[in-house]
């Protein structure tokens, strides 16, 4: 059994894919002390159907890690578009996810082969994702959060 695990582990290391760490190790918005990302949304062409993509975004569980609006969860992407800069980049990214059997449960980004998710479906999802916009007001416009900071400032013991 141990040999099997070692073999799998080595195969994982040798796989020319994005590493597991890179997929799952980052921090999403809303956690830690990171700034809310504010990279402008891409302007590249969109060919899919956003309405169809909305259903797929839910059915294929994209919301599980990215939130229903792409702003929350383990891997928020609104404001940090990265691999979502173009439709083609998105497709390449989807197909290039880890494809080795993990030794432990993982919440890393799944692989989406074209047999599991067609190019058309992927483009529809991309079209839907591109409709996302930040719902975060400026900090000055959120009294609750300002009150928290003010309370911390006052509380000097």
């Amino acid at each position, binding site marked *: 059994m141990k040999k099997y695990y070692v073999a799998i582990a080595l195969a994982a290391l040798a796989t020319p894919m994005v590493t597991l760490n890179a997929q799952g190790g980052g921090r*999403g*918005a*809303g*956690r*830690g*002390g*990171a*700034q*809310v990302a504010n990279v402008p949304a891409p302007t590249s062409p969109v060919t899919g159907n956003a309405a169809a993509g909305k259903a797929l975004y839910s*059915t*294929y*569980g994209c*919301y*599980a*890690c990215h*939130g*229903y*609006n792409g*702003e*929350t*969860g*383990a891997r*928020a992407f609104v*404001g940090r578009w990265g691999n979502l800069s173009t439709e083609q980049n998105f497709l390449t990214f989807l197909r290039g*996810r*880890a*494809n*080795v*059997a*993990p030794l432990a*449960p*993982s*919440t*890393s*980004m*799944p*692989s*989406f*082969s074209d*047999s*599991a*998710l067609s190019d058309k479906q992927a483009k529809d999802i991309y079209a839907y994702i591109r409709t996302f916009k*930040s*719902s*975060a*007001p400026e*900090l000055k416009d*959120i009294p*609750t*959060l*300002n*009150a*928290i*900071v003010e*309370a*911390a*400032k006052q*509380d*000097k*013991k």
Partner: protein
Amino acid sequence: MAKSQKTSVGRRGFLRNAAAGAAAGAAALVTPPLVEAQGQGQGRGTGTAPAPTGVPAPTQAQIDRETGNVRPPSTVRTITRPGSDLMVQTIRDLGIEYVAANPGSSFEGLQESFINYGNPPNKMPEFITALHEESAVTMAHGYAKAEGKPMLALLHGTIGIQHGAMSVYQAYYDRVPVLMIAGNDPDFIAAHTAHDMAGMVRSYTKWDAEPKTIDEALVAIQRAYNEAITPPMGPTLVVLGSEIQKDNAPNTKIPAYKPPVFVTIDATRAREIAKGLLEAQNPRIAVGRLRTPEGVQRSVELAELVGASTSTAATGGPMSFPQRHHLCGPGADTTYDYTLGLETAGAQASITGPALAKTAATRDTVNIGFGGTVPGAGGRGGGGGRAGRGGAAAAPPIEADAEASLPLIIEEVKRQMTADQKTRIQARIAKHTSANHEARVTAITQAVESKRAGWNGTPISTARLYAELWPLIMNEDWCLSSPSNFSGGHHVQLWDHNKPYSYLGGQGAGGMGYGAPASVGAALAAKARNRIVINVQTDGDLNYSPGVLWTAVHHKLPMLTVMHNNRAWHQEYMFVEYMAGVRGRGDDRAHIGSTLRDPYLDYAKMAAGYGMAGEGPITDPSKLSAALKRGVAAAKRGEPYLIDVITQPR
């Protein structure tokens, strides 16, 4: 003990029987005093016709007794002082505030004493009605984490123990003191008895006993309490036969209670540590999870005496250094030349209690080898994952109880401290105070910046949920009772954890079904202390033991439950998604078995069904704050309240 004569036929015999005899019942009613309980069952084979199986049939009296048609004769035994009264008095003397139980006939003697014995009756401990033994034990788990001392869970023989088993395991893994008593009635239902009742949970309890006499029982209860609160703390179980609960004990005296002896560092080590702290230019104290609020107080006293900056585990669990104390934080200088670890690693000295593996080695006689509790059995190693945290290389652990060792160190510090050192320490404290305040303001400013992501999104972000709660409770005495590891843990950055019970931490062994009953236990602790309990309740977890909502209402507990309702066991959903992905099969079916949809559950209605006020589901973030305000107000009035909030998954 003057053991009572056995009834001539027990209730087990009754169950085996199949028909009735009215004449036998009449005879029972005229049974003279001091004669054993003939009325509850005629002698085996007396006046009964054999059933087709050859088993004697039950009498009419037996049937009437079991169906509640008649009261048992009051004169069958003269009991002036039942053993169970003494047991309850022993428990009362130990300062046990509550006993939680789902009713079971094997402890009917005890239950009757709990509710009727004493003046006033049903106080210290008060009987708490649980709808499931798993709830009863986890209530005790949550209570102990909030108060640093045990309450009692009462379990029915065999079936009750097994119902509670998962909760026992969580408390064991969490090293939390829980006192348990199980009844054993060998004369009733055969399937509810066992010749080694505690054996079914022995591998994950710290200590157990099945005393045979009332005197032994009183000693065992005291011992079980002491074993539970002595590191490594854990659940303990005393099995009490139904007979010794009911036997007469007019002359039995409760033995004098002797508190346990905690292992401390020796005088030489105390001198060394005190010297190290006093001579250091920049000492630091890393505080892990101590046993009781008293330990927390002593850690504060030591830090203030030596002017050490401190780290805390208070954002991860109970009984650690107050987060907003002026010495808590990185301090003015982060180059520390002497670090003392209290139940955690320290670079120069680490005082940590014994590992769970030590107990497991002697208790796990059937070699189950639970991960993390037994060396080599997988998991996180022998320490249950708690000892040894910290950044710098740790000094070899000194196996002693940090809390009990603190007075020795404090005394040594006071003895050794020079006037010069005192002056230097005061100057250092002033610098630390200022630096820690700045560090906190900086940290919280950065945190709120990140929390605004998705602020106005629907469903509601978990960050907003925690953020909206904080201003409403920051000036209250509050306890966050629910684990936050599946809810974003936003309180860690936003809230101040200044009390030993501010945050009660995780489930123990990561098992679901913990949050709600642990919160009820924490609310029991809070009830008499003008404290409110906040339970950010994950939906998957609540469905294991929703009956505790009724318990909270019935006992008027100050508990606000805010649902983190993502309509899934979301962690598992993500796991399955990844697994489907790596196998190239797509994620469109990953919801099967890991989500709660078709239909969605309505938790406000669920709460209403249990008699709890509440509202929701709330999906509009602009409506959240007002709802939370209503909920906090209700909790402050001692009225539990539930708000169903549809949230982002995480």
